[in-house]
């Protein structure tokens, strides 16, 4: 099932070094690229069907097309390497194992959108990763792929790495921009969208690491070669980080459209220890959970996920076995989003803390059925009333657990906290 397009160089030793990477094809797109018109690059990316791999799945070429023309202002590219969504660990593979694919992608995107100053915003905790990335950038400068004359062409491109300081919310694209500008990382309210008013008030494109790293293959091989993978509407491949209660957790590149159950079974080796499946988080902690029945019917593509009222988001698949206490899981989940709320807008700032305390009340055996109802209602009251969707990243999954595993919450409310048993092993 696995394919190796993005991950082609992942298993090659020292592919993070420019010599090795070049021996295996890095930077070979550039001749093709500079022979193309900028608009053709955008058209090719549109035609490839590539959609944003940061979670929301917005078509990449279409997003580039939103840039206003001839504003007289510089255009910026900000690459989102904040990768902080729990269960997500795909971008780090690119950053560490094939940073030159990212740099090559940045050159492609920058050329297409007319950007000469690009930023990579990398999560603060990626301390070893940032060193490898910076080393690769330094190599690219030294070899003339970045700087005043990219690959000898009359095209300047500078790439600056900006480290975050440990805030999940800075992965939200406008908080990311605020953070680069040296301000507190708080999302801006939109409109205006960053394509029009972005970094330092200028038109800006923000793309995920994987979205950008997917570009060299598309430009080298053409849109059709990319579309050969995946389904008609969910084109190409995706890096899926499979974790949780499976025999073979890990990072796998898969074409979109595969049945989730089969992926868990054959790629990840199935639920570990012969246990029964309880549910699957399909794409990072913010995506609504799937029950075993749903897992049996869903496929890893945008449409099927939407039909199941969830998303494959950032590709972080978490398999939950029968021992998982869903109430504790929800507590863990809300604790994360509460802690990461920027605190700017009222519903998210005040509401997530309240939700957390309610779940803790339940866990302590002091909650009531009314508390569960209140928790469910708060999800509705908060969601989509806020400046950014961080709050929804919490309420959407919480709602799904409350609806799909209601009995577990009620057990806490009616029977109190169960005897402490060792629920997790290994």
């Amino acid at each position: 099932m696995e394919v190796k397009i993005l991950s082609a160089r992942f298993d090659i030793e020292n592919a993070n070094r420019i010599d090795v990477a070049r021996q295996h094809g890095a930077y070979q797109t550039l001749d093709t690229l500079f022979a193309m018109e900028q608009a053709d690059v955008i058209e090719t990316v549109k035609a490839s069907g590539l959609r944003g791999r940061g979670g929301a799945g917005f078509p990449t070429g279409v997003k580039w097309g939103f840039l206003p023309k001839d504003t007289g202002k510089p255009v910026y590219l900000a690459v989102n390497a904040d990768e902080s969504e729990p269960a997500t660990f795909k971008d780090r593979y690119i950053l560490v194992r094939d940073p030159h694919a990212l740099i090559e992608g940045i050159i492609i995107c920058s050329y297409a959108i007319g950007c000469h100053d690009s930023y990579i915003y990398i999560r603060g905790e990626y301390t070893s990763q940032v060193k490898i990335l910076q080393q690769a950038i330094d190599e690219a400068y030294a070899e003339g792929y970045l700087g005043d004359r990219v690959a000898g062409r009359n095209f300047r491109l500078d790439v600056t790495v900006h480290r975050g300081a440990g805030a999940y919310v800075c992965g939200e694209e406008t908080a990311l921009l605020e953070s680069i500008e040296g301000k507190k990382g708080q999302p801006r309210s939109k409109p205006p969208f960053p394509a029009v008013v972005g970094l330092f008030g200028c038109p800006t494109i923000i793309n995920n690491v994987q979205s950008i790293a997917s570009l060299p293959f598309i430009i080298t091989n053409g849109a059709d070669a990319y579309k050969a993978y995946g389904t008609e509407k969910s084109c190409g491949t995706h890096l899926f980080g499979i974790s949780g209660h499976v025999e073979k957790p890990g990072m796998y590149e898969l074409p979109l459209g595969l049945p989730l159950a089969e992926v868990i079974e054959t790629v990840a080796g199935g639920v570990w220890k012969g246990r029964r499946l309880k549910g699957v988080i399909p794409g990072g902690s913010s995506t609504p959970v799937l029950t075993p029945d749903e897992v049996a019917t869903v496929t890893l593509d945008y449409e099927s996920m939407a039909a199941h009222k969830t998303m494959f988001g950032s590709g972080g698949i978490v398999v939950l076995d029968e021992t998982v206490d869903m109430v504790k899981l929800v507590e863990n989940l809300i604790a994360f989003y509460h802690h990461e709320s920027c605190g700017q807008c009222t519903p998210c700032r005040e509401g997530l803390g309240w939700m957390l305390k309610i779940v803790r009340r339940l866990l302590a055996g002091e909650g009531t059925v009314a508390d569960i109802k209140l928790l469910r209602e708060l999800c509705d009251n908060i969601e989509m009333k806020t400046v950014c969707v961080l709050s929804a990243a919490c309420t959407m999954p919480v709602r799904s657990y409350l609806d799909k595993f209601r009995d577990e919450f009620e057990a806490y409310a009616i029977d109190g906290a169960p005897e402490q048993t060792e629920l997790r092993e290994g």
Partner: protein
Amino acid sequence: MAEMVKLFVNGQEVEVEAGKNLIDALQVVGIEIPHFCYHPALGADGNCRMCLVGIEDGRPPLVPACKTPAQPGMKVLLEDEKIKKIQRDIMELELINHPVDCPVCDQAGECTLQDYYMSYSQQDSRMNVEQVHKDKRLDFGCGVVHDQERCVLCARCVRFTRQITKTGELGIVNRSDQARVTIFPGRPLANRYALNIVDICPVGAMTSKDFRFRQRVWFLQKDPGICHGCSTGCNIYIDHHREKYGDDVIYRFRARTNLQVNGYFICDAGRLSYKTENENRQDRTLVDGVEVPLERGIEAALDKLNRARKPLMLVSPDSTLEQLWAIKRIATLYGAVLSGYSDAYVLAGDGDDYLISDDKAANRAGLQLLDIDSGKESFAAALADADLLVNFNNDLFFSPGNEDLQEALEATDQVSVCSHDRPAFSRATVILPCASYSEYGGSIVNRNNVLQRFARAVCRDADPCDIIEITRLLGGAISDNARAWPGLRQSVPALSRIWPERIPVEGVTLNSSEETHVGA
């Protein structure tokens, strides 16, 4: 005229100014959209979410009104169950961690949270878990005291220090429900407008050290007035109250919006200048240091005036046009030299490029309009020559610089008509108390030639006379403001077409090149 657009609110067609945000646009036609963080002087921030309104067929269907410009044909939903529920929900979330200590909160009675609870919520608390606790009674400097628990984090105060004073002392630190307004360690508020924060804070999170716990606001009578702290003439509210068995006392000044004069704010010195109205007042009539009834004081003054061969009259640059006119008339009556010398009111370099001006006089432009000589040399010469100085409330020692006049002043017999007990007046053999600006009404002209009117606000027990009344008692013909105007119109070209009762609340700019036309 601004461009107008027609749109629908709850199905009703209204016509509003194009491009204005929905909060401001609809307010003009009497439709309130609740909001905490939006402030017209600070713009939209979008953090409180209280202003969410529905837009029928809109994408998205729910928008913050503060960030949404009025557009033609737009269908705004406010009186809608869904929107009302959102308002209730936001209020619930604003309140879950709020102390609701209204009984000891200075803001109670003028608190947006209280008002909105009554208008948009009235929901019982569902909070059955521990509230978030934060710090209280934080001294932020400049007399501003902060309560982090009452704060709704609307960031108005933070934006004020960034956008208006550009001093940036305040910030919001921490995330989620730990977010709080604070100062940098050891770097308190340090600007001359800081107390405006207390005005713009929608709740009791920013209180004034000066006003804290001194009066419940619902007892205060809130009258409009004009600050006499400098020649800008900022519009204020004079909040005063007569306690049972007590006197009428001013508790605070607050900024009153006048986009033509001061915008939304006033300076701290002006705000605190209310104290001068309460304190150190000259309420007693004195003749040779002995307290006498006013009539006796007037008799003594008349006696001196009638006997004086070379009387000199000094007016104050704070006096109203009407008062100046009345004094000018009696100066003519007694053949007195008239001077408006008042250099002491100018503190060179004290002003800034915002509201504060160097000139601390409220009506210097009025002196000029009435052609009253204000030169020092002519005053000094007249003083040396005079055998009687009648000083109408001009504080010659407001600031240093007039020490050289001491000798001549000591050598001249003086009648002081004054509102305050100050060294400039105390040497007089006859002291006649008069009202201060919170106790009379009249017209003044600010440094930008804006003619403004104000009315009497305070009635203290002592009830000193308006200077106009003193002039009448001294034999003048002008007995009140109205009677001054025919003369003013006739002799001052810039005022020839002004009818004071028709001056709009925001004042009128006197144009020297053409006649200013008000009403008629």
